């Protein structure tokens, strides 16, 4: 039942994720610099960073435990799994049955727990603060994300991501107003989950505002490289998820090799536009106070619930 071509496609999708993820981060950084009239860093900067970090020695705090050392590998593993589940090029993924949309949220949650715990491990004030804030963002974002998935799952009558994308991509032209709500909510959640501007600022080490950076302050060398790579994989997974759910055109339906090849440039194009859009959001918004974040994510949650209700009102009886 698992075809060879499907398996190869799966491996290819994972490899593509590993390669493209840092590129996407670099592209967002570049766009951000352009929009802000700064001279942009090179597109390949994240690769250079990874290379440099892998070559450097790991400098551990005296107090760092085994959990601290294991966490980067675990988080990386979780993110690779997430990228394997999200349909990027085709919906024929042997890995897809391993985890549906709900389990995907769980996998992200697992990574979040580990990074928070790792942040608390060394026992500096920043690490705990970051861990606490990460969990704060997490428990607010998770319900909103699941409500988005619920809306989609109701449309597709399935929680399997592959089925959802297939339903949405290969349908007659039907407008789902609920998707508009879900889409906006998903954007909010993605910004929060990926430590992007209105909630967190990935480019700052300003002490009182940071979340993600605060947790990983003690990491160095290959550990830091893996964490950064995992972060860009997470961004890639969220971007692909958003593109697959709300702009699903062009994703290959099965193990059709030609469609698969055709899907690659389309994916690149969509990612480029998506990255620029993200950079745009980050440019026109200012980072908000940490206690505005609940309001922001609360809004996302409300929108997702509203989408669900609109779905039930307008679309269920037809």
């Amino acid at each position: 039942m698992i075809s060879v071509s499907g398996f190869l496609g799966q491996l290819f999708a994972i490899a593509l994720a590993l390669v493209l993820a840092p590129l996407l981060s670099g592209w967002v950084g570049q766009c951000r610099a352009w929009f802000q009239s700064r001279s942009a860093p090179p597109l390949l900067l994240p690769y250079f960073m990874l290379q440099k970090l892998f070559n450097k020695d790991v400098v551990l705090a005296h107090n760092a435990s085994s959990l601290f050392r294991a966490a980067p590998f675990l988080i990386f593993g979780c993110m690779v799994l997430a990228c394997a589940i999200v349909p990027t090029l085709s919906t024929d993924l042997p890995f897809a049955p391993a985890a549906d949309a709900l389990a995907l949220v769980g996998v992200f949650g697992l990574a979040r727990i580990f990074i928070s715990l790792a942040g608390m491990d060394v026992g500096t004030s920043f690490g705990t603060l970051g861990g606490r804030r990460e969990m704060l963002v997490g428990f607010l974002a998770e319900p909103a994300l699941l409500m988005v998935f619920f809306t989609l799952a109701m449309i597709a009558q399935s929680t399997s991501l592959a089925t959802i994308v297939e339903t949405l991509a290969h349908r007659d032209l039907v407008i789902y107003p609920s998707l508009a709500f879900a889409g906006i909510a998903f954007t909010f959640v993605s910004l929060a989950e990926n430590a992007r501007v209105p909630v967190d600022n990935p480019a700052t080490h300003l002490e009182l505002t940071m979340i993600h950076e605060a947790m990983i302050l003690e990491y160095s060398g290959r550990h830091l490289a893996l964490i950064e790579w995992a972060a860009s994989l997470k961004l890639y997974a969220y971007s692909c998820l958003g593109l697959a759910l709300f702009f699903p055109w062009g994703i290959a339906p099965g193990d059709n090799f030609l469609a698969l090849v055709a899907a690659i440039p389309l994916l690149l194009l969509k990612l480029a536009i998506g990255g620029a859009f993200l950079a745009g959001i980050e440019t026109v918004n200012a980072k908000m106070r940490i206690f505005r974040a609940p309001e922001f994510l609360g809004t996302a949650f409300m929108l997702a619930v509203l989408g669900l209700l609109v779905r039930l009102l307008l679309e269920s009886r037809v």
Partner: protein
Amino acid sequence: MTNFLPIDFLLTAGCAWLVIGLLGLVAPRNTQLISKMLFPLGALVGVGVGLVALDALGGPAQTAVLAIGLPDLPFHLRLDNLSAVFALLLGFVAAGISIYAAGYFRKGEGTAPGLMCLQYHFFLASMLMVLLADDAYAFMVAWESMALSSFFLVTTDHKHEEIRRAGYLYLLIAHIGAIGILLCFGVMTGGMGGGGGDYSFAGMRAQDLSPFWASAAFLLALAGFGAKAGLVPLHVWLPEAHPAAPSPVSAMMSGVMLKTAIYGLLRVSFDLLHSTLWWWGVVALVIGLATALFGVLYSTVQNDMKRLLAYSSIENIGLITVGIGLTLVFHAYRMEGLAALAMTAVLYHGLAHAGFKSLLFLCTGSVLHATRERSLGKLGGLIHRMPWVAWLALAGVIASAGLPPLSGFVSEWLLLQSFLFSPGLPHPWLNMVVPVAAALVVLVAALAGFAMVKFYGIIFLGQMREPALKDAHDAGPWEKAGLAWLALITLLLGVLPSTVILRIDAATRQLLGTGLADKLNENGWWMLAPISAERASYEPLIVLVTIAAMLLLVRWLVRHLYHGRVRRTTAWDCGYHFEGPRAQDTAEGFSQPIRRIFEPMFRMERHFPTARDVKPYYSVKVEDHFWHWCYLPVARAAGWVSTLIVTLQGGRIAVYLMYSFITLLLLLLVARP
């Protein structure tokens, strides 16, 4: 005696537990004998109970009649699939806790070990009897023995005032609950319609109650069993009694005893009553949601590690009740497929919670022994001194946070799936409210993650907050074995959901007439797809293997391609040299966002330091609203009524006799046929 049926074996096991308990009285102070002989024996019996129950699952119900009891009132016993699921839970979890207890009880702590051994095994035997009882009389006897023995176990350290108080509160609420259950049985025997009712469960099943009396019975059962399970507003004993009891007892109460209440609720609402009304489900759903949200919010703000876990148990019971409510709604509308899904989630969460919560309570026991400290504010960094406990606790934490690939996630996944496929309920209001309820369930699960990170991070990670923690030591071999056993249960329940569900499906089938087995058999044992593989599937084993494989592969690759060099140095202190362990976030600090966002949910007393304080300090005390809303008014009213009654109390016997005489006279006058 033609053949030895499982029910006979379970009865023998119960007797064996009683005998083991009594043996403890032979030499009550001989710790060596009791802990190294009797507790492991008890654990062995536990494994036996679990195996027999596993074997009995799917088989026909077996009955037995014990001649003990009052004349003409024998004990009816019955082992059916529902009992077997819970006996399975009891046996396997009790085995882990007993092994742990073998290493836990030491000399000179509170009650003599022999007495403790008696109470503990009596507790186990009475729980088993609750599961086997097939008439109201046997059930109540077992139920009360369970309450009493656990009361004595809670008050092991009875020299402390607050422990005695906790025990009293527990006993009080246990009895309020028992009254509810008794009345519920009374209603169900059909005594209302005239004619003496049949007190056996078989008689109750045969009764055809009117909707009004059936609803009354359901609500009484919900209140009665809810008091035992810790549903709001009858939860107040739980956060008092669990920290007061020794850790193995807390583990047993939280992991197993609360589940007997769930068992009772299931027994009454699905087995003994037939005409399910849809609003029962809504009531259970709302109470369950309130309990879950309340429990998890309070668990995030606790500073005592066992209280934190106690509130987390309230949360889990809430989630189970949500599942029961959903099952009732589906069952009432004859949507049996979905009802089976929700019911499976209920049973699975019962099993999962029994495993991981016992594990976590036992871990707190080890921490308590190693440090003599229960307050989170004085712990920290224990992963360096107690790596075994720390890593095994991590399994409990991940399961409790409801994350893949461990056990908590499976039941949450099933519960959410049953929520998700609820549209199609023939009631528009329900159709819209149910998805929002699902959102709240997710919020609860995510908050549980917050609470668990706090629990684990503050106890095991960071720097040691007190110098004395340097002398902490890891758990002994017995304790490690017990923890590992429970962690193994958590892992197996996490990665082999289909296998487990195929076993416990018999109980679902018994209660609802349909189960998930057919659907599950269509796919491989590694895949959990309760409806169909296209609609929803989850393969925890693949998740686990992928993450583990990636971990090893990446580690190997990085070492191979680059290097594995590590240097150790001091942590970065921001150029501020005085950053000691005190600069870490405190337990109070960690939960500050929750207190702030959900401020109206808490009753807080805070003191903030000001610039002019000579001795500046910060303190925050979070109290339960329910004390002030429900309990204190009742207590005050009771006090007021008592002062009124005091005036009747003259002290002269003649006056008292006159009261009796007048009462008798009045009764004779009033009560005429």
